[in-house]
């Protein structure tokens, strides 16, 4: 672990009740990088973000953010650390009883004593960064899915965090919004000097913008490397994933009895 490592995960295991989700994961992200965590649905990517955010505690292993072991912090220290993290939820998770403006202003009002006119300027600057300054007066119900996610992004960068975690930022977006969101993630990371962790299964879009990729499957890191290395990877799992092949190391069928036996065909017994 070097000095410019912001997030460091060592041998982390985690399970919900008896079901293991992560089985000894190692992963790290350097400052200024966009790091993607890829894998099929339900492989524990979102769980990983929750462990980094301190909402869950690992059963084993260590999660460090900015040198602090997240699971050992008390609530006050955890909240202090979280002020330096932003998280973009899959569907934005905007507060539906507040306008776009108030959503972005939320953290500024909760955590700072700034006067309202300064907050107004800051909010409009953040909204301008995601191209939605004109939507400040709208309610979340009036936004499209892509717009809601951009507002959530503006809200996540309101306190100028050092780390932003994106949970499936590309899910369910049209091609234009997809490009816009990808560009925003890259541009904000570069201009604000922050670190981005992107949990996604959108290979094509994310490979355009990321510095480093981790492939997670069955609770372990299956492969890792730069976008170029991943594209040219010969590993069967990565190849199946990148090229979107329906069958391969990740089977099409959910585990089941042999087909013939399930249909009670006599032939199977013969």
């Amino acid at each position: 672990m070097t000095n410019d490592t912001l997030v460091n995960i060592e041998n982390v295991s985690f399970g919900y009740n008896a079901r293991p989700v992560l089985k000894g994961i190692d992963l790290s992200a350097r400052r200024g990088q966009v790091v993607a965590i890829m894998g099929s649905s339900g492989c524990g990517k979102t769980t990983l973000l929750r462990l980094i955010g301190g909402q869950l505690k690992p059963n084993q292993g260590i999660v460090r953010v900015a040198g602090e072991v997240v699971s050992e912090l008390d609530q006050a220290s955890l909240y202090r650390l979280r002020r330096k993290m932003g998280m973009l939820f899959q569907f934005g998770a905007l507060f539906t009883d507040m306008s776009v403006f108030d959503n972005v202003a939320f953290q500024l009002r909760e955590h700072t004593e700034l006067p309202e006119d300064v907050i107004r300027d800051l909010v409009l600057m953040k909204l301008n960064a995601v191209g939605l300054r004109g939507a400040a007066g709208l309610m979340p119900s009036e936004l499209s899915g892509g717009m809601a996610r951009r507002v959530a992004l503006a809200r996540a960068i309101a306190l100028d965090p050092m780390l932003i975690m994106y949970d499936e930022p590309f899910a369910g977006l049209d091609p234009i919004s997809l490009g816009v969101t990808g560009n925003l993630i890259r541009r904000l990371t570069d201009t604000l000097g922050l670190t981005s962790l992107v949990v996604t299964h959108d290979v094509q879009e994310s490979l355009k913008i990321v510095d480093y990729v981790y492939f997670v499957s069955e609770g372990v890191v299956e492969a890792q490397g730069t976008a170029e290395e991943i594209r040219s990877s010969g590993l069967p799992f990565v190849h199946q994933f990148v090229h979107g092949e329906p069958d391969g190391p990740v089977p099409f069928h959910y585990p089941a009895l042999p087909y013939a036996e399930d249909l009670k065909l006599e032939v199977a017994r013969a």
Partner: protein
Amino acid sequence: MLKALFGGVSSVGRQTVDGIWRIGYATRFFFAILLHSGTAFSRFGLTIREIYFSGVLSLIIILVSGLFVGMVLGLQGYETLQTYGSEEALGILVALSLVRELGPVVAALLFASRAGSAITAEIGLMKATEQLTAMEMMAVDPIARVVAPRFWAGVLSMPLLAAMFSAVGIMGGYLVGVVLIGVDEGSFWSQMQAKVDFNLDIMNGIIKSVVFGIAVTAIALFEGYDAPPTAEGVSGATTRTVVTSSLAILALDFMLTAFMFRGLN
């Protein structure tokens, strides 16, 4: 056969353990609300806003119901009292019924179905759409910011609503008894004034409604906070809020009445 028996026994055991666990969780949740109530008072605007949503917006249903309940009391009371030739006692009957029992209880039942269900649905949906998690990730405690202001708003609104229910109900009794049927106006009011005791009747009614306010709002908040983050989860939680809090109101009312009015005669 044996397997089914074991299955049955273990399912009873599991349900018992789950039930006890849930009671423990609810109790911890309740104390967490009390512990994190600072924000609800230091930023009283948050609580005022919730008083508007659960208290002020419940006014119409409370006032209309209060009026009708009072009018029915006037009719029924007159029917019975006149048999004994004591219809001038109608004022006492209407006032005591409302202030001691019907005001706190019916207002609380209406509050549970009007405001309690809304609170559960709102919190449950905030949870389902990850708004509460988002808040936590922004280092804002949802118990302090979302739950506690709603709790105190309910606790403050309930006695006011019950008082208004009783007041309007007495007006309803007056309308039917005095204006419509023609009971003597002087004795209607003077007997009421003489026989309704401030400490025994009015204060006890207020205490009841505060207790009901705590119960209904705490149940509504807990059900919302504990709701599974799905459509069925939220709808089930909303139903449970209304059912559980209605039963809680009636059971608590019996216990409180037993304590408050024992040895009265």
